[in-house]
């Protein structure tokens, strides 16, 4: 069985990459990889008191989501949300341990920022979005698991879903455990595709242009994560969210597919129709 979905808008954020177009340039080697860390803007969408408190991972998520929302075709409060990340809290994890282990003294602010669903909570506050939001994780398979959750939700709700896949860099000594060196994130606005979704059809407005139509299927046997393609900077090798870039890069050719392990199976994502055909 295959689950069809349409990608309506996408945002991409990583060092040296600030949009989907720039990601496709990186893929086509028209744009060099850079090593400088991403500088993330203070999220202007948040109320001033919350803005001050926003951690780096919250800034990463909000800045990336803002790109996908910038098309203006979807009101930010009409999107259901699925957020997927591996470790999920970035520098906050280290800050918590550094506060907890010697003294047990933790600031209330640090504690709620240490929650895996803090970015989802801030997003909902920023855009007054009252719809369901899920924060999911599956280690180095977090992107694949998150995409499956997001597409499942699009298919069953017949509503658009904002899917965010992200990883924030971990400071030492956490980096020795999980070598996430740089921030990578992508934001996807998706809807189920009526042609392929069987009985669970959504009917996106024809006026809403899309970037591509994809099919998702589960099969075979899981196993190891395949090596990342050579155009992806090696500094992103440990980032589950950077695997999302492989799927988005299919848009450059207008067709193709990728496979990712998910538990004991593999998740296949195929681009069925590129932008020109949609």
């Amino acid at each position, binding site marked *: 069985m295959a689950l069809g979905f349409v990608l309506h808008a996408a945002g991409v954020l990583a060092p040296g990459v600030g949009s989907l177009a720039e990601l496709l340039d990186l893929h086509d080697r028209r744009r060099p990889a850079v090593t400088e860390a991403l500088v993330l803007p203070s999220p202007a969408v948040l109320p001033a008191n919350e803005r001050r408190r926003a951690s780096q991972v919250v800034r990463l998520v909000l800045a990336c989501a803002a790109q996908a929302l910038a098309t203006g075709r979807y009101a930010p409060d009409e999107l259901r949300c699925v957020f997927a990340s591996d470790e999920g809290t970035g520098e906050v994890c280290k800050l918590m341990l550094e506060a907890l282990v010697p003294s047990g003294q933790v*600031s209330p602010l640090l504690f709620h920022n240490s929650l895996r669903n803090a970015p989802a*909570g801030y997003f909902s506050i920023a855009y007054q979005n009252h719809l369901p939001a899920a924060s999911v994780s599956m280690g180095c398979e977090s992107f694949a698991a998150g995409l499956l959750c997001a597409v499942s939700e699009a298919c069953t709700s017949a509503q658009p879903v904002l899917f965010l896949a992200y990883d924030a860099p971990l400071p030492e000594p956490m980096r020795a455990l999980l070598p996430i060196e740089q921030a990578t994130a992508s934001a996807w606005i998706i809807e189920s595709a009526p042609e392929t979704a069987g009985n669970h059809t959504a009917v996106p407005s024809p006026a809403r242009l899309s970037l591509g139509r994809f099919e998702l299927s589960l099969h075979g046997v899981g196993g190891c994560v395949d090596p990342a393609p050579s155009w992806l900077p090696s500094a992103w090798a440990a980032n589950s969210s950077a695997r999302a870039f492989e799927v988005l890069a299919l848009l450059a050719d207008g067709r193709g597919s990728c496979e990712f392990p998910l538990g*004991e199976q593999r998740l296949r994502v195929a681009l069925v129709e590129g932008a020109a055909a949609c």
Partner: protein
Amino acid sequence: MSGIAAYSTVHAAGADNLTSWQAILTGCSGLKPNTLAWCGLPTWIGEVAAVNDTALPADLDAWDCRTHRLAWLALQCAPFRQAVDDAVGRHGASRVGLILGSSTSGIRSTEVAYKHWREDGHWPTDFDYRRTHSLDALCRLSGGLLGLRGPMVMISTACSSSAKVFVMAQRWMDIGLIDAAVVGGVDSLCLTTLHGFNALQLLSSEPCRPFDSARNGISIGEAAGFVLLDRDPAAVNLMGGGESSDAWHMSSPHPDGLGAQAAMRQALQVAGLGPQDIGYVNAHGTATPANDRAEAAAMRAVFGADAVPVSSTKGVTGHTLGAAGITEAIVAIQALEQQILPPSANLAQLEPRLGLDVVMQPRRAELRHAMSNSFGFGGTNCSLVFGRAR
């Protein structure tokens, strides 16, 4: 809709389904003063004492952490294991999904290891982050023990984590991805949550007293629970779930419980039921002044004042955070099986302004449908409706 084929629950007041239910039913609290060697906070905790005497088998040593010991305890339930084996036999291992929730997963192991890092300048050589603290470890360990090969994912949305697992599992069944799912959740006591809630001044120095006039905070507990959902209906079924976001504040609920109202109304709508059809609500009922007030306001708005019997069983189990959803879903399921409404423990003086029909003593009832509420930091809300087959 999906059938509840089997379940297993472990919490401070009971290490198996029967003793857990007996404690819930008699309001016999599993809370006790904190004597943890590694945490000096003057609070009461819901510790699963058996964790301290539990070891994973030698071949699973790399996975050993407090959270996984709790999971291991819950997975010893023979009828549950048999039902999972039957589901795997009937549907095939790749058609049984696994969706588990946790707030802090095995973070306790990193807290211990970090102490070594600060003292020695390196991580302990036997510390395995991926098999202990990493969220996915619980899924991989549980999936391996149960012989599941279907799609798997962890949900981490604070205290709604292991309620939302039911909704995701139903989605996966609805689109034909799977025929059955093991859902569940585990959270264990750790410095992160004990000190985190203390910093927010939300920890009670006494056993927590949900809905009491003098309630003054939560008691943190630990728990593990698993439910086997099957496409085939059973004696008790998941009728539907509703989810929402408060979009209000990171660590306090909307004062009128607007998000909670939306979750409850959506759960009723998905279940095809009206408020009058619900015979019991297992409330989130954490026992902080603000949480209980907001949830009561939400229940009054959805059901009317004093219109539906309500209890919080956190006075027995403590607030088990990421495991609260599954623990209390199982209470709602047991109430439907036994046709008895469990009381709200530790309740001396019901706050009259809440306008709730709080169950004070075990109450016999002809119960067709029960709701379980779970709300969390970040404004995440989930309500589940379970029903007894005619």
